[in-house]
């Protein structure tokens, strides 16, 4: 019975995650811990394995369509995987309350970020610092909407790398893809066009999640009873969510998601403080 409930919850988390571009993990862990009373570290471990499946599934299409920039992805993966290992090590050594607290804060921060999110156009950056030029952080993609090929250059490779270590750390620590954070770094710091930044972030997430997964596997926290329905459910949910996304208005989904983030974030913090 529990298996079926976890499966359904995972489909919901995957669907909502895909529809809002936030990924399934950010909802999955609160769902599992708050509703199903799963141990927080076990929930994080199950979530990070499922992140490999969802991100690799969609990255496959983005890479084929040449939207993801493989070079920028490979460069940044050097930082995210080390971050993910450090993050997983922190979680494995921390008490449950601290993890709840940090998770809650990340949820509320996502809520604020969605609230303030500036609308960015498809203008491509063509200025570059020397390190970024040396690292060949550039490319072009075909924009289906306008029918034009857009050439772009990434910049501030050094800051991007350091910040990506942080994104990897949060991903490994909380068992999430931290895609929203990676996209923010791509957009605001490295000045990549939105299409490239979201698809490249997706590309990076799979490898980052693997680094985290390996630590949770070694710690014996990947429990088939939880992880298997989660992997299958989230993957199905996110496939479905991507399809629904085209038909639903963005604003409605975003508002609903923001409400969910706020409630879950508050509950996680209360749980962390021992008040719930």
């Amino acid at each position: 019975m529990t298996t079926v409930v976890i499966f359904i919850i995972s489909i919901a988390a995957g669907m909502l995650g895909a529809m809002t571009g936030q990924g399934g993990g950010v909802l999955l862990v609160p769902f599992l811990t708050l509703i199903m009373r799963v141990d927080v570290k076990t929930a994080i471990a199950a979530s990070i394995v499922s992140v490999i499946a969802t991100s690799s599934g969609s990255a496959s299409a983005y890479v084929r369509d040449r939207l993801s920039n493989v070079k920028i992805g490979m460069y940044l993966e050097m930082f995210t995987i080390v971050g993910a290992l450090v993050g997983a090590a922190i979680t494995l050594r921390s008490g449950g309350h601290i993890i709840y607290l940090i998770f809650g804060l990340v949820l509320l921060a996502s809520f604020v970020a969605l609230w303030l999110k500036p609308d960015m156009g498809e203008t491509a950056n063509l200025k570059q610092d020397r390190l970024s030029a040396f690292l060949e952080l550039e490319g072009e993609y075909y924009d289906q909407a306008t029918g034009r090929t857009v050439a772009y250059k990434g910049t501030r490779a050094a800051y991007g790398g350091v910040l990506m270590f942080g994104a990897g750390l949060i991903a490994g620590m909380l068992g999430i893809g931290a895609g929203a954070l990676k996209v923010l770094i791509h957009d605001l710091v490295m000045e990549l066009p939105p299409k490239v930044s979201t698809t490249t972030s997706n590309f990076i997430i799979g490898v980052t999640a693997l680094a985290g997964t390996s630590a949770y596997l070694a710690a014996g926290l990947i429990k088939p009873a939880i992880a298997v329905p989660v992997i299958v459910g989230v993957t199905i949910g996110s496939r479905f969510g991507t399809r629904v996304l085209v038909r639903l208005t963005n604003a409605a989904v975003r508002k609903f998601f923001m409400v969910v983030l706020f409630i879950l974030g508050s509950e996680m913090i209360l749980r962390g403080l021992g008040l719930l």
Partner: protein
Amino acid sequence: MSGDAVRDHGVASGGRRPAFDMELVISYVLITGVALSLILLVVGTAAYAIVHHDLALAYSLPQDNLYEFIRLTLSHLFTAKDVINLGIIVLMLTPYVRVLFSAIYFGAIARNLKYTLFTTFVLVVLTYSLFLRL
């Protein structure tokens, strides 16, 4: 193979395609890995439910690294449990194989020293983490 054909692997736009199309290879690796893993997980769970008359997967994975996990899973006759474990193993190997192919591409085909070093670094850290013992 002309140097020109392999030069624009970053995000090549239509027209010319290099002989070893890295994007296409990576795309296939990812989708095959995920699909195979899901099939194994679903089939394994179904088999487990039939044998044990219960859908709850009441067993634990060895508290060990991926290498030991693979060795243990493949060391005995296939049970429903092993099929499920294999699904998890295939999923974990998917991004790993993807990086491996990228490393081969940058090293042997594009001959881009910088990116060969970068992908090798990623590969080494991943390999280390998969052999981790806690």
